[in-house]
């Protein structure tokens, strides 16, 4: 594989995997929390939160990227404070991870929310009458029963993060080894004469990763569903 891919292509693949892995892992706890809040709680501003979560799905990715740059750039209101603490996102691979996480978040929350809504509240009540505090009810009943949706949401988010382009290139640019993920690399290769070969290799990698993610989510989802469903 390393022979087939040139060093520059390989760097894009490795970076994409790293960015997507951390984007997915770091957003998962927030994704579960927000999905649970949307599925089970009623609170003022619920529709606004729901809208905010889904916004990146509807906005042009460039807009999302630009908003991230405004907020998290070193001179932005949040990015400025973080920069004082030594945390910088702009033009770093961590920034690419943030962009990917934001763009993938709606898909993750949607899948998890649906699976939490499918958990029968009567089972959560039964758990409470047996002595489980709300935290234990969540950990021993809600979470395991929603697991198929959580797995599906996570894999979907990972695949989406792998493909993120517009917000990433707007927010953190296209720096080889730092923010040049697979889609940015394909874009860059297509800008130079003779780059089609490298671009095609990355296209194939993209397809393989996407298909693999779908296949994996199918297999894991089915296995978990069988375990939860009995027999």
């Amino acid at each position, binding site marked *: 594989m390393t022979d087939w891919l040139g060093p520059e292509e390989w760097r894009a693949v490795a970076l994409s995997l790293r960015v997507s892995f951390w984007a997915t892992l770091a957003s998962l706890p927030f994704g579960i929390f927000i999905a649970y809040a949307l599925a089970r709680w009623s609170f003022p501003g619920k529709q606004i939160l729901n809208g905010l979560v889904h916004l990146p799905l509807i906005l042009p990715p460039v807009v999302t990227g630009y908003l991230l740059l405004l907020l998290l750039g070193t001179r932005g209101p949040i990015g400025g404070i973080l920069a004082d603490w030594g945390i910088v996102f702009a033009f770093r691979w961590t920034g690419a991870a943030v962009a990917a996480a934001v763009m993938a978040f709606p898909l993750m929350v949607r899948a998890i929310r649906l699976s939490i809504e499918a958990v029968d509240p009567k089972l959560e009540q039964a758990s409470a*009458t047996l002595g*489980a505090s709300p935290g234990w009810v969540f950990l*021993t009943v809600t979470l395991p029963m929603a697991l198929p949706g959580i797995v599906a949401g996570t894999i979907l988010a990972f695949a989406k993060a792998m493909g993120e382009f517009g917000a990433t290139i707007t927010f953190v640019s296209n720096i080889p080894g730092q923010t040049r993920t697979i889609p940015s690399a394909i874009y860059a290769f297509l800008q130079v004469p003779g780059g089609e070969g490298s671009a095609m290799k990355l296209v194939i990698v993209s397809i393989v990763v996407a298909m693999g993610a779908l296949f994996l989510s199918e297999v894991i989802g089915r296995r978990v569903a069988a*375990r939860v469903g009995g027999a």
Partner: protein
Amino acid sequence: MLDVSLRHDFGGFSLDAHFRAPAGVTVLFGRSGSGKTTIVNAVAGLLMPDAGRIAANDWVLLDTDAGIRLRPHRRRLGYIFQEGRLFPHLTVRQNLAYGAWFAPKDAAREDMGKVVELLGIGHLLDRRPGALSGGEKSRVAIGRALLSAPRLILADEPLAALDEARKAEILPYFERLRDEVSVPILYVSHSASEVARLATTVVALDAGRVVAQGPAAEILGDPAVLPTGAREAGAVLTARVARHHDDGLSELDAGGIPLFLPRLAQVPGSTLRIRIAAHDVILSRTRPEGLSALNILPGTIRDIRPGEGPGAIVALDTDAGRVLARITRRSATALGLEAGARVYAIIKTVSVAASDIGSGSTG
């Protein structure tokens, strides 16, 4: 001893109920919509009533005046739900152990092996609920509640979702629970035969009010209290199996009066409670001769209650206990029946359904 006092209004329904549940099985008995499930959910903490007090001895679960409202998980109750509500992602063994995991370490608890044996679920332990039959799920649900080291067991029509054969299979387990486990049980039912077989105490409910409460035989034999209507009226007698005869009959002794029933499984000497449906009882002013019915109980009329329509419920005291008879008002007039009159109650042997015979006494 459980003390319950509740007031709650919702959607045009008002509940205002006060009752005490001593040890044994206390059945909340009434038609659907009479507030039974609301009361059980309030005791469990799944519903917060407008006002009320619930205390098991000195353990206060709810006292709205004092601002005490324990969350469900702090109440230490074993709730047996109508639909079982087993956790589908856990094995039967894990379901059974679930409650014990959260119980205080020093809580008096039932032994897992003993409960598994009592309920006959040893062969199911490694399965998941999805692979169990309705009756098996019910038994596991009973075990799960029992093993959570509860101070009180709640059961909300646990048999209502089962067919007759499954009911007949599960009822004896509740009888054993009543007789072998010291935890008090609050049991919701609208079935007269379940009440007759299980209840130590009956709390009769109608439209959110307690209309009567007391020992089972007393409440079921009171024609003024027919929570599910005259059609389902029936008194409960306590009888001892005397001997089994070769012709397929069992002879019982009910307060010195012999009763003949179709062959029973219980060994001679065991005590049974038998529900005699009021519509299966015929009354006669004189001791009948040349009649095919085998069971004739002499008694004195205590009370006659005219029902809606052409019927009336006659309550009579016999040596075997209180018996209710449902007859027409025309017959009551023709026979000159009135309180204090001597009559004979006639019960056909084959009319007593097997599902109306349970173990234990009503005392």
